[in-house]
């Protein structure tokens, strides 16, 4: 019984000690500091990882000469890549076929141009010659 009561007092003493430690504030410290502390402890570590680095938040300055230079450079790049792009386009068309709804007259026969078709000229021409030699 005596040992139990002593044990109980020791437990109560330790409990009050731990509570008092949690409640100790430095002079002038805001008692709501835990709210802020828990918020910033959970925050993403991206703020910490960017320390010592430079964040590039650049803007584009108004400079007509620079714009002209960039346009010139873009034109040169396009000129240099045009052959490759056209080749890639042809390869895509060969792989996937001419698109159904494509109104592009470059790849499709938009007009009625069968009369000057090379194969037809050969067929009719040879038939004509054959007829000539048979019936002359």
């Amino acid at each position, binding site marked *: 019984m005596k040992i139990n009561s002593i044990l109980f007092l020791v437990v109560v003493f330790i409990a009050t000690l731990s509570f008092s430690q949690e409640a100790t504030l430095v002079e002038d410290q805001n008692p709501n500091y835990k709210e802020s502390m828990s918020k910033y402890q959970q925050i993403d570590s991206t*703020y*910490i*990882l*960017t*320390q*010592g*680095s*430079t*964040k*590039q*938040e*650049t*803007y*584009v*300055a*108004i*400079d*007509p*000469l*620079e714009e002209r230079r960039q346009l010139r450079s873009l034109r040169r790049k396009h000129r240099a890549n045009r052959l490759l792009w056209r080749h890639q386009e042809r390869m895509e068309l060969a792989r996937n076929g001419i698109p159904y709804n494509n109104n592009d007259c470059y790849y499709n026969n938009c007009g009625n141009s069968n009369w000057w078709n090379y194969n037809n000229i050969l067929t009719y021409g040879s038939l004509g010659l054959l007829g000539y030699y048979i019936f002359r």
Partner: protein
Amino acid sequence: MRKKLIILSLIISGAVAFNSCSRKITRVATDSQIDISGRWNDTDSRLAAEELTDEIIYGDWLTDFIQKHGRKPVIIVGLVRNKSHEHIEAETFIKDIEKAFIRKQKARVVAGGKMREELRAERADQQTNASVSTMKKFGLESGADYMLQGNINSIVDAHKREKVVYYQVDLELTDIQSNEKVWIGDKKIKKFVKN
């Protein structure tokens, strides 16, 4: 005679052509001023480093701190925002400031950012792999007193083939405990570029 003249002229023109086609590289002093495009270059970074280092090291904030606490302050480098119109790396002049602090023993500098993560990862690895006598403990890092942060801004005024570019590099030292700014330094550079 004519044949010899032709051969000689061919040799000379060949030599001239060969020399003009080859690339010339010369090593120059790191503090020599060479401006080519008019953009931010190493000379600008060096000027910013020199002025900002002098201003921060001989600032009153340092003596005030030492008088108040009786020890050197601990500084960590934070984020520098480049809000100018060009790509600028602040590390080229921030590193000079850190070096000056350490060389002159005016303040202590602690690692931050990704370098600190790497150190912590190494420390964690030592807990399992290093011997007990050599492994380093967690929870014993030096907390920084001040954080060095900054901004880089620019203003461009261009018309036809002339351009005036103004850069301003601002650095601030802030007390991490109280958010108080104890020092602000800046370096202004203005350039006139004619094409």
